[in-house]
């Protein structure tokens, strides 16, 4: 059953630590990544919700783009964001889109001194870099930084643990960041995450990543694998690229229109804006929803969704058992007319139709620390 790990895959700076912690590895986007450690996905999930989990997300892309006002103008032609008013060290969730508003990647963009830092999905980062370089006509210095690791620390105890190692992080608001110095290393910390919990993402030099992470473990945090990362994000109703998001889906279809700046919609001069505006005005035929199966049946990706008249109306994009919800959870796309909360639907699992309902997201209530600005 266990998948063999391809020896050509890359290792992160925490590889030795993962091995020391008895990780089971999987090949993910060309990297050997820990899927779980000895305690298993359910326990790792619960530990993150109740305490503090450390996630090695060094496979993700850290793209630094340097430039001044020209860069802001050029990036506004690419991203549907009000970047002119994005304050220093503040972050926004956004998308790299095609002309048809198909999603090439979803990302977090942060205004830093002299430019922007963009966090990209591992599987998309090389392609994103090429697309962005072409769109920006090679005008700006762009570094897809392989010299830095990215470590997330998530869960209610994370602020206490991280501040005991890096003083001052407790003052960061949700979706903002800053540079810190620890043992002469420059560390960029943002208050953000992918679990529905309060937490931080720490960009740190590769050479210091192992020592830094072991300090967090000494303070009581535990390493958490990609398996629990997936159950945590799914309970939090967050999208995963390649599942909820793809080149065939637009941000409006993905029910992420909140991430598109209203001011920018009015001006409409960004890549994909024609389609986005049209979809916002006349609606979409399919839309992302939360799905709650009855009982314990788990509807995995590609499970077909039917309405009460037995007509196929959509498909599941992610589904698992949610340990904090203590039941199955799923997301998928359904025809717009069946997307209302509490609509009865059926899921075809192993040849049988099982009842479920459309539900609001998230399945698990967020515990983010809100900004005061």
């Amino acid at each position: 059953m266990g998948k063999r790990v391809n020896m050509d895959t890359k290792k992160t700076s925490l590889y030795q630590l993962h091995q020391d912690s008895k990780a089971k590895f999987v090949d993910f986007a060309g990297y050997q990544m820990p899927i779980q450690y000895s305690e298993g996905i359910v326990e790792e999930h619960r530990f993150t919700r109740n305490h503090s989990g450390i996630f090695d997300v060094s496979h993700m892309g850290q793209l630094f783009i340097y430039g001044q006002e020209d860069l802001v103008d050029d990036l506004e032609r690419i991203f549907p964001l009000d970047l002119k008013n994005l304050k220093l060290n503040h972050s926004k969730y956004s998308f790299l889109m095609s002309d048809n508003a198909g999603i090439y990647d979803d990302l977090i963009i942060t205004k830093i001194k002299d430019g922007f830092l963009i966090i990209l999905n591992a599987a998309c980062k090389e392609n994103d870099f090429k697309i962005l370089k072409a769109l920006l006509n090679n005008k700006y210095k762009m570094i897809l930084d392989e010299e830095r690791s990215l470590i997330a620390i998530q869960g209610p105890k994370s602020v206490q643990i991280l501040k005991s190692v890096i003083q001052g992080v407790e003052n960061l608001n949700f979706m903002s960041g800053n540079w810190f110095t620890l043992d002469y290393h420059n560390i960029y910390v943002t208050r953000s995450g992918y679990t529905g919990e309060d937490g931080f993402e720490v960009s740190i030099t590769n050479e210091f990543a192992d020592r830094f992470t072991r300090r967090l473990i000494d303070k009581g945090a535990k390493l958490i694998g990609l398996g629990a990362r997936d159950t945590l994000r799914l309970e939090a109703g967050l999208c995963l690229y390649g599942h909820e998001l793809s080149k065939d889906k637009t941000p409006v279809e993905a029910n992420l229109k909140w991430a598109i700046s209203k001011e920018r919609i009015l001006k409409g001069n960004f890549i994909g804006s024609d389609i986005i505006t049209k979809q916002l005005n006349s609606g979409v035929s399919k839309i992302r929803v939360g799905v709650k199966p009855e009982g314990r049946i788990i509807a995995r990706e590609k499970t077909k969704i039917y309405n009460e008249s037995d007509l196929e109306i959509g498909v599941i994009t992610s589904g698992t058992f949610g340990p904090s919800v203590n039941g199955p959870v799923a997301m998928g796309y359904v025809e717009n007319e069946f997307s209302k909360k509490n609509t009865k639907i059926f899921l075809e699992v192993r040849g049988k139709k099982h009842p479920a309902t459309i539900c609001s997201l998230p399945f698990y209530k967020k515990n983010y620390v809100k900004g005061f600005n």
Partner: protein
Amino acid sequence: MSEVKYSKEHEWIKLEGNIATIGITKHATEMLGDIVFTELPEKGSNVEKDGTAGVVESTKAASDVYTPVSGEVVDLNQSIVDDPSKINQDPENSAWFFKLKIKDKSEMDTLMNKDEYDKFAKESSA
């Protein structure tokens, strides 16, 4: 006297008279991880050797459970449907899956004994 045998699909089978109790091995649960869903065959149904006779799902994926021998399903362990985590806790004892009234005892002959299975499990996970 009862004898316990093992299949290459990581089921164990304990035969007492003509009643076989079937479950999945500890090694299987370690490969699967946390089991969160179980589906069992219907009571009274007939299952064929090496055919599907249930499903277990972990947080990661679904896996079929096969029956190593043919027979009629005469009993089910509802407690592992109500709380699938019991399978991780005690897979080769209280967390049995189903009981069969078997037709052909010779089907047991092709299965492995404990030593053979332990060796097989070690090699297949290497």
